[in-house]
């Protein structure tokens, strides 16, 4: 049930595609995992300022392997750098930025996204799972635009884009746009709206791997490729 060879975007291409939709000058928070790769794909002529919730605005690229400092890390606890114009601050100020609506955009991973924009990305709710929420609930509650980057399905082919999340929610109704290995999809008032297909992917393929209705591009061509 995995995507065919040569079909769709790689993790890196998904991140690159998401970066294309971030406006110049945006203040951006990147979640752990594929979202972290977005930082390596700033489109020509644009400048983003990356926020990491553990107290740094102006996060720069990873240091050389083996380099960096243990007290200069990102939210994923990986070593990072700081760009000229960076600022350090404490956790309450950092989440004041988030909760107060000062960040333009965040890019998060997902376990499930519903066609109402509900996001589940912190817990499978399993009896043996150690619940761990971090800053995800704060980010979706406060950041103006929420992007999700995720594989279109789990490894065993189960759709992650669904009518209703079965996992515990991170927040209801918060996701604006989803970047998967197969497509770019908006969450609209009428549910999922296909915005763009990955190379080799078809509407039928995307629809068959999505557990909720999804409108093809032709029904709403004006939206294609726009930034929410």
């Amino acid at each position, binding site marked *: 049930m995995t995507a065919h060879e040569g079909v769709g975007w790689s993790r890196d291409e998904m991140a690159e595609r998401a970066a294309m939709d971030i406006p110049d000058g945006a203040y951006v928070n990147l979640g752990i995992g594929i979202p972290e790769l977005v930082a390596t794909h700033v489109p020509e002529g644009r400048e983003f300022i990356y926020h990491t919730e553990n107290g740094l605005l102006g996060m720069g690229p990873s240091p050389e392997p083996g380099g960096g400092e243990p007290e200069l890390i990102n939210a994923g606890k990986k070593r990072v750098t700081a760009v000229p*114009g960076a*600022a350090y601050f404490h956790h309450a100020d950092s989440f004041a930025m988030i*909760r107060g609506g000062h960040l333009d955009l965040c890019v998060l991973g997902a376990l499930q996204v519903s066609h109402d924009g509900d996001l589940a990305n912190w817990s499978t709710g399993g009896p043996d799972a150690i619940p761990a929420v971090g800053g995800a609930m704060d980010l979706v509650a*406060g950041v103006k635009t929420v992007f999700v980057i995720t594989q279109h399905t789990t490894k065993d082919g189960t759709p992650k884009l669904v009518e209703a999340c079965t996992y515990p929610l991170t927040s209801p109704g918060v996701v604006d746009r989803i970047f998967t290995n197969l497509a770019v999809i908006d969450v609209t008032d009428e549910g999922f709206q296909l915005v763009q297909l990955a190379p080799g992917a078809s509407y039928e393929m995307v629809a068959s791997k999505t557990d909720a209705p999804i409108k093809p591009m032709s029904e709403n061509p004006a939206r294609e490729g726009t930034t929410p």
Partner: protein
Amino acid sequence: MIDKRIGTPAEAVADIPDGATVMIGGFGEAGSPIELIHALIDRGARDLTVVNNNTGSGEVGLAALIKERRVARMICSYPRTANSTVFPELYRNDEIELELVPQGTLAERIRAGGAGIPAFYTPTSVGTPLSEGKEHRRFDGREYVLEHGLTADFSLIKAKVSDRHGNLIFNKTARNFAPVMAMAGRTTVVQADAVVDAGDLDPECIVTPGIFVQRVVEVTEPLQESELVAQGVSYP
């Protein structure tokens, strides 16, 4: 490239409309963005709600804005100070509205507004006329009053140095309300004594990170309110 610099105070306040809520930094003259206030007077916006700890002194800066009848309503903690005659006269004539807020509650309401906190409980003002009509509630046997976050359409503040990202440092007790007003303003306009390039400020010493700032104007030799008052200057 991110560059928040704007050429003149006039351009920086050119879109402040009638009826706007405007936070203005400063505690007395310390930290008062006097050039931005004078530009706002020139701009002509009326019916403003202004948040400031005081009401200005003499007939310059905030006092001049009030004297020109641009302020419909003041939210402040201490509307009378030395050389403050403009506000008292209008207030006694019912020509300006006053919401009196304890200073710490004012600061916390502004921070809350900027931090996405719609309301909080505080012990300050319980048992006094200033908490009358407000919701009270006990926590751990002590009585508190519910207060609401404050936000503004525009915040006008003064900094010592800004970089092109809007990262700010301040001068001594001129810092006062500026950092929290920067958080609470949907558009925060800064006048800085100096504007430098990104990276020129120590990232450990930045007080207000640039995310809270939208516009920066360099005003290299700002007027000092007390000097103008001593000289009997009246603006405009």
